[in-house]
């Protein structure tokens, strides 16, 4: 996939950016500068240090929030996969949260957590925890029951079965959930910055839009996309190297 897909992916990106450049030069809208101007603005922002500061500001809740979301989400997901009581208690709520319009809910966080770091953290977790937990839960449920029968037939304990059968079997779904959770964490952080406390990359976007510096506004958005997509690509690479699940890709039942 990578050998064939990569040049085409690059080509599609180049095509979109070229269209953007053309639309900007053609003067389609005042608020759409050509891509080359956006790149120039990006370099300016990087040069004067405001971009680095903003990225640092945005990454802080993303990193802390992701850590907390992984602890809470994985624990919750595994508990739901292993116990019917926890499953009944949490699955419905998490599915609602997972599908709820977060842009509408995030501003409400301010009434509880104010407009500081805690609010950003809450937004990150609101987006990341449901995804992480539901994927972990589905991973446990997708474990081949024949393997569990086999484990029981050799008089293996339930606890041992969780460690030697369920966790390795669910590791693929678990990792995918973690990756999607990180994506959710980025979205949560930027939503909080746009809707609650103007700071970080969100502030760069809001401020530059307000004063009509659209090239700078797009530059901030592009920087955010590169940051988030880069992080996800890195996670995917780590996943491929580490996971046993990748070693038996294509062999669902062996």
């Amino acid at each position, binding site marked *: 996939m990578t050998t064939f897909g990569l040049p085409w992916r690059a080509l599609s990106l180049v095509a979109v950016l070229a269209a953007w450049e053309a639309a900007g030069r053609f003067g389609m809208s005042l608020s759409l500068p050509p891509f080359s101007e956006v790149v120039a603005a990006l370099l300016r922002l990087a040069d004067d240090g405001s971009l680095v500061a903003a990225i640092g500001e945005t990454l802080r809740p993303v990193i802390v929030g992701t850590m907390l979301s992984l602890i809470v989400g994985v624990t919750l997901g595994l508990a739901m996969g292993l116990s019917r009581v926890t499953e009944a208690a949490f699955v419905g709520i998490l599915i609602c949260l997972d599908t709820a319009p977060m842009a509408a809910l995030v501003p409400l966080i301010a009434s509880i957590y104010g407009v500081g770091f805690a609010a950003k953290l809450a937004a990150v977790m609101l987006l990341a925890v449901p995804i992480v937990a539901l994927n972990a839960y589905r991973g446990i449920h997708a474990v*081949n029951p*024949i*393997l569990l*029968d*086999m*484990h*029981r*037939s*050799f*008089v*293996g304990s339930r606890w*041992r079965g969780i460690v*030697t*059968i369920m966790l*390795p*079997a669910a590791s693929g779904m678990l990792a995918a959930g973690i990756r999607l959770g990180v994506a959710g964490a980025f979205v949560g952080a930027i939503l909080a910055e746009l809707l609650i406390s103007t700071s970080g990359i969100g502030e760069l976007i809001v401020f530059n839009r307000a004063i009509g510096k659209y090239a700078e506004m797009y530059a901030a958005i592009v920087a955010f996309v590169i940051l988030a997509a880069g992080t996800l690509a890195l996670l995917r690479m780590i996943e491929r190297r580490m996971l*046993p*699940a990748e*070693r*038996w890709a*294509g*062999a*669902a*039942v*062996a």
Partner: protein
Amino acid sequence: MTAGIVVRDVHKSYGGVTEALAGVSFDAPDGALTSLIGPSGCGKTTLLKLIAGLLEPGAGEILVDGRPVAGPGRDRALVFQDFALLPWATVLRNVGYGLELRGVVRGEREAIAHRLIERVGLAGFEYRYPHELSGGMKQRVGLARALAVEAPILLMDEPFSQVDEQTRRKFQEDLRDLLSGERRTVLFVTHSIEEAVYLSDRIVLLSPRPGRVTDVIDTVHDRAMDPDRIRRDSAYIDTVDRIWHILRNYLT
């Protein structure tokens, strides 16, 4: 105390609706190979799972070497129709998995696993993963895993049904050789009449759902004979014929 497996008037239904077994009784004598044979849906696999302790009977009694079955036990080892190998583990770890669960230290269980891998004819594949193996090889791993724990009772659930015909014949002969030196009680589920007659001392015939025992046939051909001669032996052919005539009644 009666050694071997004793099944007395066992009933099992699923969800209180589908009756899988309706009063099954038979004996699988100690040290012999007994086959369960019957049309699909006769509850063969259910019966084997009950004896393995993976399911509980609705009514009736199952004794293994004189003791009532209450859950899985170290006296029984199971070979699965779908192999049930850990896809993320090497052949070596898979074969040693039963020993691993029993707390046998790594060096010792790997030594045992190496020996059994050799015995089932998979030497050289110790560090391969299940997806790199053919169906027949996967089942050899499943068999080695079951043999490794040295349980006196071996339960085999249609072990060759996922294996092609040529491999199957070779596997049957190998299984006979593997078991000939040992005194294990084997219960073998199959839907192949030839396989049942070729391998078994006793054959238990089950009716379609709800499963009942219709006949118990003890084979009379000399099992020490050369495999190719057995398949042409008149006692062997007569038994195959007899079972075929009983099972034919269930075909619609």
